């Protein structure tokens, strides 16, 4: 068991190093530090201004290790700073990135956690109901509804929600943010509704397949032969057995709660990490983008290791190999 945990963690660490290599290739190989400087301060900047900017932002070293600068180069610097969580300053406005991350995390979580929980509850319950009524018109109409919902891009939900609920019905504000008060929930209501609605189709369809995979197993037939009712079979027999695929999907979503939702936050004016990323895109702020991708993958790898280890604890069939 311990050997497995160690091996799994080592592979996770290797993946994180791989992610950093990919980011280096993307941001220092595909675009050069000169490009980054020019995008930040303008195409027609004088060479000495560019040099000065590169110096201020720590881009003025050789890119790869070579004779004379084995450790003093951008590649080593990139690894060292990312791995010690020293993310430096934003390329756009010189604010420390760590501060922005700290400010953005809370609003992001305020949006994504309720959306995630609500979506999960609604999704699983609807899927259970559909699995209970499989083959009937309830099942068929829900399946059709799911396909329709999946075919509507989230942009249309955002626009439709803001127009109908925000502008016409005036139930909730169209967009905005106020920290730590009851007004915050009024601002959050619309984005949460839109998020849950746009994810509903895919979620229900996924859990329906998971439950239907179980419904035709032998143990269900045995339970029915014993005389168990439909509800009892579903809740006592199917649900626990379907927990493994459900849990995998659920746990893998959790890292993304921290990175926020790009579209919802930008559209509803919530100053979270998603908005931060959108601002970084518009300002060509590569340092922030790098950091966001790195943190996202770090959280993802951590969640993956925990699920894999969790499997071995929960499911005796999973072998440690």
């Amino acid at each position, binding site marked *: 068991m311990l050997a497995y945990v160690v091996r799994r963690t080592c592979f996770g660490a290797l993946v994180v190093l791989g992610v950093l290599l*990919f980011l280096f290739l993307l*941001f220092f190989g595909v675009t050069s530090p000169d490009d980054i400087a020019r995008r930040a301060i303008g195409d027609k900047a004088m060479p000495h201004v560019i040099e000065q900017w590169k110096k201020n932002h720590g881009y003025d070293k050789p890119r790869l290790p070579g004779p004379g600068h084995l450790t003093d180069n951008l590649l080593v610097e990139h690894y060292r700073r990312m791995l010690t969580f020293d993310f430096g300053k934003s390329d756009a406005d010189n604010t420390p990135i760590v501060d922005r991350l700290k400010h953005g995390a809370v609003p992001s979580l305020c949006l994504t956690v309720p959306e995630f929980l609500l979506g999960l509850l609604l999704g699983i319950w609807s899927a259970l109901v559909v699995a209970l009524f499989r083959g009937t018109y309830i099942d068929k109409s829900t399946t059709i509804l799911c396909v329709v919902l999946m075919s509507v891009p989230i*942009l249309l939900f955002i626009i439709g929600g803001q127009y109908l609920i925000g502008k016409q019905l005036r139930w909730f504000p169209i967009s905005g943010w106020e920290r730590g008060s009851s007004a915050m929930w009024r601002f959050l209501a619309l984005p949460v509704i839109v998020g849950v609605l746009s994810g509903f189709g895919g979620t229900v369809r996924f859990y329906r397949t998971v439950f239907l995979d179980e419904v035709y197993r032998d143990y269900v037939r045995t339970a029915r032969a014993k005389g168990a009712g439909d509800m009892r079979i579903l809740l006592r027999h199917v649900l626990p057995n379907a927990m493994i695929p459900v849990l995998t999907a659920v746990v893998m979503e959790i890292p993304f709660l921290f990175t926020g939702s790009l579209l919802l936050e930008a559209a509803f004016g919530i100053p979270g990490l998603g908005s931060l990323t959108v601002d970084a895109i518009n300002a060509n702020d590569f340092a922030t*983008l790098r950091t966001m991708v790195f943190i*996202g993958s770090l959280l*993802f790898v951590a969640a993956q290791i925990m699920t894999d280890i969790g499997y071995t604890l929960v499911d005796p069939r999973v072998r440690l190999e």
Partner: protein
Amino acid sequence: MVSALTNSHHTSNVVVLLLVLGGLWLGWRVKRNEPWHDALADAFRRGPTAWCVLGLYVLVALADSVAWKGGVSAAAPDQVARFEAKSLLDRAVGGKTEKSYSAPLATREFARDRPLVRPGTHLLGTDKLGRDVLFVTLKGARVALLVGGFTSLIAIPLALLFGVLAGYFGKWIDDGVFFVMSTLASMPSVLLLVAMITALPRGTIWVCVALGVTSWVGFCRLARGETFKLRELDYVNAARALGASHARIIVRHILPNLLHLVLIRFVLLFSALVLSEAVLSWLNIGVDGSWGQMVAQAKNELSRDPIVWWNVAGATVGLVGLLLSINVVGDTIRDALDPRTRGDRA
């Protein structure tokens, strides 16, 4: 290369020719191959409307891809148009430009009360630049199919190559491919996508490349797992015992048995790509002329009073129609081809 694909009408015409010939060749092959013929006929029977709608989209996109110069009368008000290549679609419904917004079938302009150049002819009104919305919507079909098609052309061969090699040979090749897949998969896909598009040069091709890099991993994993299973089957062992080379086993025995997965996955990938492109357009880093851009304009248009609804309506019909038909067609293909979902279980 970028201009060659988006601007040069010659390249576009050649691509259309290749696509049509390729389609005919595929159709001929399918017709002669009984299992595939039966399966596809079965898939069509499960949702004929969706298949026809999808076909319509493809026709519109093809009509917008065949272009040639000349043929515009010298008396036309737009002198530049005489020297530009115009597509079949441009010639059929294009060329009705106004100055700014106008409501559907209106006779006067939306904001200022000026009479239109062609009153009452714009079925879906005109947009901010005075272009006919119906026409712009139809042109969006080409962009959507171009993005989806070109990205699939990058992602699927890449995924098949690495997936099959990793699954078939195992050992260090498998370790390497698995590591690359894990690395790419561990980056949140939206973040990875926007990071790549910001770092890469501008242009349709590079958006497709970025979409390709983020979308090949899932398919590669599938191909790897499936090859892993196929490798152990009796007929592969038999082929090996007969002295077949690795290349022959892969091409003749493994790839054909992956084809149904490729097809199912291709359709799923396509709808995901169209959705992703819409999101990118909303963030101002998408492809020019896409439906996503039209929806993004609605951010301002819906706050006007009275609202400008026809632009977003056109894009909505275009997008939802395409995605819905692709999703339904994908389901019919999966139901017809995948033995696990065949019958009443689906």
